Structure formats: structure tokens, C-alpha cells
């Protein structure tokens, strides 16, 4: 019996189908000096690991693997720390099974 292999998130996302809209990220992080607790939490909580902490302690985003779940919008949308929308119609993640 083959064991279950522990996978990195990057490898998990590799299984998925995406149609990336080049140069049109659908989420962006507003300029900030210090991240709020919720913004900081996104570096852990985002299921696609889109949010990272840079060496100056600020939160940055790369949206390529985004699963469009909306978690970051629920946590940081209201405070204006991020701007959020879905990718254009037809773009983004395309679930084969869902």
C-alpha cells in the first residue's frame, strides 16, 4: 500500500487548472507600514498561500494560485487594506470536480 505523500501547497495547486489573466491581478494589497493582525493572518490563513511577508515586515500578494474563496475579502475587505474582486469572466481557477 502506497503511503500518502505530504505535499507543499504549491504542489497541490499544480494539480488545478487555471486560466491566468496576464497583468491583471484581481486582488491587491494597499500600501502599509505595519500590517493589521487580520492582514498578517492572511499569510497563514489563505488556502493558496498567496500572501507573503516581505523582509520589511509588509504583506504582499501574488494571485496566480488564488482559489477565489473570499477569505481575504471577509477578513480585510471592510477595512480597505486590500482591494478584492473576482477575475474577469472565464479567467481564474477552473475546477474540474469542485
Amino acid at each position, binding site marked *: 500500500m502506497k503511503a500518502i505523500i505530504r505535499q507543499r501547497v504549491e504542489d497541490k495547486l499544480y*494539480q488545478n487548472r487555471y486560466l491566468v489573466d496576464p497583468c491583471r491581478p484581481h486582488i491587491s494589497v494597499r500600501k502599509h507600514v505595519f500590517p493589521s493582525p487580520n492582514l498578517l493572518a492572511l499569510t497563514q*490563513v489563505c488556502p493558496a498561500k498567496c500572501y507573503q511577508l516581505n523582509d520589511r515586515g509588509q504583506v504582499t500578494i501574488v494571485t496566480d494560485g488564488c482559489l477565489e474563496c473570499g*477569505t481575504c475579502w471577509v477578513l480585510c475587505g471592510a477595512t480597505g487594506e486590500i482591494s478584492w474582486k473576482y477575475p474577469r*469572466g472565464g479567467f481564474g481557477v477552473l*475546477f474540474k470536480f*469542485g
Partner: protein
Amino acid sequence: MRNEKFDAIVVGAGMSGNAAAYAMAVRGLKVLQLERGEYPGSKNVQGAILYADALEEIIPNFREDAPLERHLIEQRFWIMDSMSHTGIHYRSDDFNQRRPNRYTIIRAQFDKWFSARVREAGCTVLCETMATKLIKDSNGSVKGVYTDRTGESILADVVVLAEGVNGFLGTRGHLRETPKPDSVALAVKEMHFLPEDVIAERFGLTAGEGCVIEAGGTISRGIPGLGFLYTNKESISIGIGCLVSGLAATMEKPYDILDAFKHHPSIRPLIAGSEVKEYAAHLIPEGGFRAIPQLFGNGWVVVGDAAQLNNAAHREGSNLAMTSGYLAGRAIADVKDHGRSMVKANLSLYKSMLYESFVIKDLMKHKDMPRFLHANCQSFFVHYPKLMSQAAQSFVRVDGTSKLEKEKATSAAFFKARSGWGLISDTVRLARAWR
């Protein structure tokens, strides 16, 4: 399309949107449905159990060609700690009836099928098209939507918001609030593929039969949450949902929690050797009755997850979505048949139909559950599961200790972890919330 006017626009081709569009199209209304995905289902994630009753009401002969995986004959409820599970299994041959009550499905395939029925009924379906903004007149009445196809505007007498849990159109159009971190759970899910006969053997099933596991306990690390494992024909859906506010407070990574669940000694052998073909994430509305927003207004109604119509206590959502969409569609067709306009007073028919149905009755019954579980998450997701495991182990293990001594030790452990009053009040409050 620019100068065409529709009787109704349905935003979204998920469970609720398809039901609404179908209900109106079969009644002869001119309906346009917009879906942002490449095809209906390409953006949707579910466990997924389909409750036949809700669909049968809409499409009675759905069993003839709907893509169904397995009909469920066994349900397991597990309470887990890190090493063990204590469980109730309910299995009955009664579920092998001619028209089974519950099936597993794969959403991407199911939504495509449902959408084909909607098209056959006469609805115009536009995929790869996102509704970007509501069009309102000076009185705030909804008149149509803008889309991201060259910013086109499309007009209709009524807009059905079936846009799912995030519901941007309605929240940005100030019809309701953005979901709060403590009223939505983030679910992460994987699809594990295994040969059909291996699945059958591991779960003790014969062809067509299915088994599901719902699991709670220390696996969600003190965050209100649940794990699930559903058998499909040739795959197993496995996932875990945790309250977003809990994840943010503890900074736990959802994929780490899922990985730990997959590696739990009770789960690991069930999925061993499988090939993972997809990793998905989605929110689930958990706010219950108290989180339901205004359901209708001048020129609009809201259905399904966008209206928080989801019964987290019973793991039901798609059936509430279908039923609410179907009732909204029928209400709109009734208003139209009477030659009335789509103003708030007339659209209130939708709300009265919904309140007559199981949807609101069930949500009202459990209205205190979300608050209760959130307030007592350490007890229910850490202490009790551990104690349950210890008690079961002590009961089962034969080690020369007398039964009386074991019982005393078990109850002492319960009282120590949660004072006597705490235990009693948890029980009473749980019973009350469940009532």
C-alpha cells in the same frame, strides 16, 4: 443584447440560480442567466451530498440522466482526538430503495447537467460573463446589471441574486452586509482517486452504495470546525471546514489542518495509495437564522448562500439553495401572471413561501447553535473529544482495574476538565440550542 429587456436576470448558475432560472423558464418567462465561470460549476465547490427531495420537487425524473455518484446507505459520525475516534455508525438496507434519498455528486459535473436542463427549459445562459454592478434608478429600485463584457448593461424587471456566499453584487449594491469572519467557515478539500472496487472494499459497499463520514474533535485545533469524507464512484472527497475568525485568531493554516486530518490513523488507511487530482477551497455560510439578510426589495430577490440560507448544524446547503431559488422563481412567475410589477410589496410573496418551507423552519429551530458552539469551542473541540477518547479507551481496555474504579476515574476526569456546573450547563445549553 444591449437593447433587449428580460423578465428576469439570474446572477449565478449554481444550485440556487439554476433552480430559479428553471422555475421561471418553464413558466414561460424570458430569462437571462449570467455565470462568471467558463462553464456552470467551474467555480463551485461542495462536499458533496445531494438531497434528492429538493431536486425531485423541481425535476422529478432527475435520476434518469443526472450525474450521480453513489446513493448513501451508511453515515458515520466521529468524535476524534489525535489518535482515536469514537463514533456512531448508522447503516440501513432501507436506504437501498428504488428512489434513494441522498447521493454523492461531483459539483462541476452536476452543475453542467442542471444547466443543460435550464437551457432546455428556454433560458438564455451566458457563461464567462460576470455581473459587475447593479443598475438602479433614482429611487434605488434595481433595474438590471452591468457585465464585464464591454461593460454592457442589461435590463430586466427583476434580478435574482444567486451569486453564492461572497455575494459581491448585493453587498456592493448595499442590499446586505459583507459576511463576517465569525459567520463563515473556510473549507479546503481534495479529490482522491482510487479504483471503484478498492473504495467498495474499504467501506464495505457493493456497486452504487456509498458511505460518508463527518468528523469533529481536536482535529480542528479548538476552532469550531468539521472534517468530512465522502465516497464517490471512483474517488473520495475529503476536506475540513473551520470558522474564519478562528483561523485568523490562531493563525492556523487550513491546509495543515487538512493534512493532519488525512494522516489521522483512522483516516489514513481509507485513502492510502490514492492519486490527488484537485485541491479546492470555498466558504460556507455558518451564521444561521440570525444572519439572514433582507430577502427582497424593489426589483430584486436574494437566494441560496448569498442569503446565508445554509444549515451548518445538519451539513445542508445545496437543498436550501435549490428550494429557495425554486420558490423565488415561482413567486416571480406568480407576480408576473397576475400582471403585477416587481416591487417590494409584491415580491414579499417569495418570503412568505420561504417561511412556509423547511428552509426557514429548520434554520429557526437551530438559531442559537452557531452562537453556542462559538462561545464554547474549547469544550466542544478540545476537552470533550479528549475525554470521550479516554472514557472509551478505559471502557474497552482490559487491564486488571475494576470496572467501578474505571467509572470513577472517567467521571472524575470529566469533572476536572470542566467543572460539574460547566458540564451541566453545557448540556442544558446544547439541548436548548438544538431544540
